[in-house]
């Protein structure tokens, strides 16, 4: 269909030459993952390998379990009342659901950015960035904090916009700036993996594009997982795409996973095609 063709057109040209990491070691291996909200079975039997150095997009209709999925990767799923998960998630080969695994440490290594920007309202921009350091590490020299703040904000492409406002409250920034601040905050503790749950859904197109550029520049150093309901965004910003969908039983399942280009231009599954062409959702 023509629509899909035009989608393929907006895939960035450099993606074409990217080598897909089929034979590099996966950073995250998800094995038979099931997640529940009390009695409700939200996602069923997910198996998925996520590779370092790439942006992996998770797409699918509302309620298919995208958020649930990535929250399972840093054990944030279980902080919801009554929620629990079974199965394995291996990070660098180690199961984060092992009985002796410490969720606090896991979350320190796996940064997360949420759909709605959530800077700490009582903290300044500066303090927001180093919040993770302050909470987790012994007190450091001011110069060290200064350095981290500048580096993180630069990485988040926010430094120039806020360098004169470091002492303003985090909530005094615009929505897009707040979201980049949250990314900077996540980067400040130098995680290995960055999970982003619809990070641009609250933002206007300009801010959205900035975030996408940012992801592109970060992916060399991090393993990035991006949940989005915006097809164009998935097509533009990701290297791999996983399509999830919930069945009649409301359990979310992985329908198709592969290179973004393939998924968008040549989906193997009829449901993927329908969804991407806008017939579903």
């Amino acid at each position: 269909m023509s629509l899909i063709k035009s989608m393929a057109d907006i895939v960035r040209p450099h993606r074409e030459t990217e080598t897909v990491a089929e034979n590099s070691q996966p950073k995250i291996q998800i094995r038979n993952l099931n997640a529940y909200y009390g009695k409700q079975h939200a996602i069923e039997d997910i198996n998925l390998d996520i590779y370092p150095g790439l942006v992996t997009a998770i797409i699918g209709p509302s309620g298919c379990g995208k958020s649930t999925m990535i929250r399972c990767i840093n054990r944030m799923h279980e902080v919801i009342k009554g929620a629990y998960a079974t199965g394995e998630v291996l990070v660098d080969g180690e199961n984060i659901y092992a009985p002796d695994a410490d969720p606090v440490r896991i979350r320190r290594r796996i940064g997360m950015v949420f759909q709605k920007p959530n800077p700490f309202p009582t903290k300044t921009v500066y303090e927001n960035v180093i919040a993770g350091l302050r909470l987790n590490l012994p007190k450091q020299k001011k110069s060290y904090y200064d350095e981290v703040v500048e580096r993180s904000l630069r990485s988040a492409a926010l430094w120039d916009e806020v360098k004169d406002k470091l002492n303003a409250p985090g909530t005094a920034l615009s929505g897009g700036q707040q979201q980049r601040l949250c990314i900077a905050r996540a980067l400040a503790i130098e995680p290995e993996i960055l999970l982003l749950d619809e990070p641009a859904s609250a933002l206007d197109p300009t801010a959205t594009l900035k975030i996408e550029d940012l992801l592109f520049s970060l992916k060399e150093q991090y393993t990035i997982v991006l949940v989005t309901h915006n097809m164009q965004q998935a097509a533009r910003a990701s290297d791999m795409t996983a399509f999830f969908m919930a069945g009649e039983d409301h359990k979310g399942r992985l329908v198709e996973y592969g290179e973004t280009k393939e998924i968008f231009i040549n989906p193997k599954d009829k449901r993927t095609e329908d969804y991407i062409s806008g017939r579903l959702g």
Partner: protein
Amino acid sequence: MHDVELARMRTRKLSAAFFYGLVIIATVLSVSILFIIISHIFMNGIGALNLDFFTQIPKPYGEEGGGIAPAIVGTLIMLAVAALIAIPVGVATAIFIVEYGQTKFATAVRFAVELLAELPSIVVGIFIWALVVRSITGYSGLAGSLALAVIMIPIIARSVEEILKLVPDTLREAALALGTPRWKVVLFIVIPTVLPGLLTSIMLAVARAAGETAPLLLTSLGNTFFNFDLRRPMAAMPLQIYSYAISPYDDWHKKAWGATLLLIALVGIISGAVKYFTRRWNHESH
């Protein structure tokens, strides 16, 4: 529209207007009650307030003059001690309910808080009498403080619970996702976020306890002299108001009105001050 309908419209309109009138009357009545009571207290009480009133101990029966200073001091001491006990327990309970509220135990705690908050205060008096006055201290400021603390705890727990619930989960998740242990999330993220509201609700609980009479009747007894020793009976403004009000002495009536005005002003000042400071706080942080 049909004619019948038009005719009916008139009576419907009329009844709507009539009931609107009733609603207005109810509102005006309800609102005016406050003004009536406050103006009586103000007019009758203002005349009693002079330097002696604040600095002197009560005079013997039938002699004019003197003041209620021991009662003012006693109320402040007992409130302070009660707050010292009740604030940590109340806040901790609220934190438990909100942040760890998934268990059956937490539900039971909530329920207990709910029931304690609505216990008649005279029952609290009996309880502290039986537990403390009878077997430990005799009538004492400490017993009075404990009674006030028991009254404050559930009020604090309940209002702090409401306040903590206002903190969006996204904020907790933001902190958790940074790899922060739960207790640090609570202490360094959740509580600072709502600190002004927290202080307000705590102070309102203190203010409410300030006016309690019935439990003090059975625990702190009263005192005609200054007393700073918690082990001995202590005077309190509500007690003084009660005994002066029911007496036949005109001078005491005046003092009772004065003390009432003072008590209400105290409650008003506490809540006003809290509002003022929290507003400043909010201005500074935003």
